[in-house]
């Protein structure tokens, strides 16, 4: 007699009426099914009485309202204050603050319904995350190790930035962009920290406009601005390398031109 497979049990637990004849005659499979059901029900009951605290709900509402008020009044966003007994949640609020910095210019996003602007907001959000003091990077003195890390996370090896002339790679990390995993290099430059985010999207779909200048190697460059950040993107092969930083397009172009030369 062939017993019911684990996958078939999952179908039965989902309510599919299958293998009923076998179940009627097989005590072993009936016991296994009963055990799986018991575990599922116990798990469900363990969470049954669990609810988010009213404090959490209030905090989320207040933070969203603060973000909206800042957008409409053009005033800086006031972060929801922490009560003293919840100071251990400071990292959460730091994260919230970083996101709120991005939320302020989202008035453009909401007003124009522009997915391109949303993409730019996400790119700037990744850069803002990279600037957080507690941001963890994968860093290694050997470029090969960084490339290996990105390959293991992304499934391909992005072009590796050339450094020198006052530029150094702080590390690389991955994040989500348009619900996909993307990699970014974080580079210290004499003008400040920039992120080079590698995405598959074409610059035009990111709402960027073509620049009149080209890189030293002659590649076409694209630019956009969002919040306080400038973005300059170069397409290499199947990927767009988007440099994001709080510096001018002109200088960003110079940096990415050197980094990708």
């Amino acid at each position, binding site marked *: 007699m062939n017993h019911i497979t684990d996958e078939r049990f999952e179908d039965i637990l*989902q309510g599919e009426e299958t293998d009923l004849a076998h179940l009627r005659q097989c005590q072993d499979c009936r016991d296994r099914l009963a*055990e799986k059901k018991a*575990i599922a029900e*116990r798990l469900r009951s363990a969470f049954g009485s669990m609810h988010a605290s009213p404090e959490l709900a209030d905090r989320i509402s207040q933070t969203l309202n603060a973000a909206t008020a800042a957008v409409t009044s053009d005033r800086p966003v006031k972060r929801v204050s922490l009560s003293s007994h919840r100071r251990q949640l400071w990292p959460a609020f730091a994260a919230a603050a970083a996101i709120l910095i991005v939320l302020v210019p989202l008035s453009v996003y909401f007003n124009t319904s522009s997915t391109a602007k*949303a993409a730019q907001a996400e790119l700037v959000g990744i850069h803002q995350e990279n600037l957080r003091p507690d941001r*963890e990077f994968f860093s290694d003195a050997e470029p090969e190790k960084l490339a290996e890390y990105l390959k293991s996370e992304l499934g391909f090896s992005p072009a590796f930035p050339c450094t020198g002339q006052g530029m150094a790679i702080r590390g690389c*990390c991955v994040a989500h962009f348009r619900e996909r995993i993307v990699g970014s290099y974080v580079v210290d430059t004499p003008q400040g920290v920039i992120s080079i985010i590698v995405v598959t999207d074409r610059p035009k779909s990111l709402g960027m406009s073509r620049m009149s200048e080209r890189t030293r190697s002659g590649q076409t460059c694209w630019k956009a601005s969002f919040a306080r950040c400038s973005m300059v993107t170069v397409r290499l092969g199947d990927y767009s390398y988007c440099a994001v930083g709080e510096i001018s397009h002109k200088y960003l172009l110079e940096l990415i031109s050197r980094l990708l030369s």
Partner: protein
Amino acid sequence: MDSAETFEKAALGHLDAVYRAAVALCGGRQEADDLVQETYLRAFERFESFRPGTNCKAWLLRIMRNIWIDRLRRKKIAGNELPLAEQAVAEEGRDKETVWSNAEDLIENFSDEQVIKALSELQEDQRLTLFLIDVEQLSQEDVARITGVATGTVKSRTSRGRAALKERLASYARKMGLAGH
């Protein structure tokens, strides 16, 4: 109706479900609060990408899963060991096949906290999948969309997760003297 109001109307109704999923992922309520708050802020930021009429809860859970995965990666980069079910089970001795003569009676002996703790010790992919299937009672197709895998993978993860949870509870039972080896 402004954007925040529209968002709150659509998303805050799922707060309990998102919170429970966060507890399942994090194991602790404080970290879960943090994860939920970040999830809602990220969701608000991306609300334009949500299509009205589609499953808002699944959309929120997918965002939360992505944030959680990003956090795990950061922890991994920082050199912190992630809780792996295999390691935990190996410590307890996987070769000891547990036979429960009366599963239903036995699992009633565990407190809610113990059951949630056992769940939080499973591998991340099994933990969330099992939670969404057994607790939230989502369809395999919805879970596949949330976790970004095929339906077949959802089935195997659920099955392996439930078996691993049983092993975890069995090890608790042994410690509590409720079951033999």
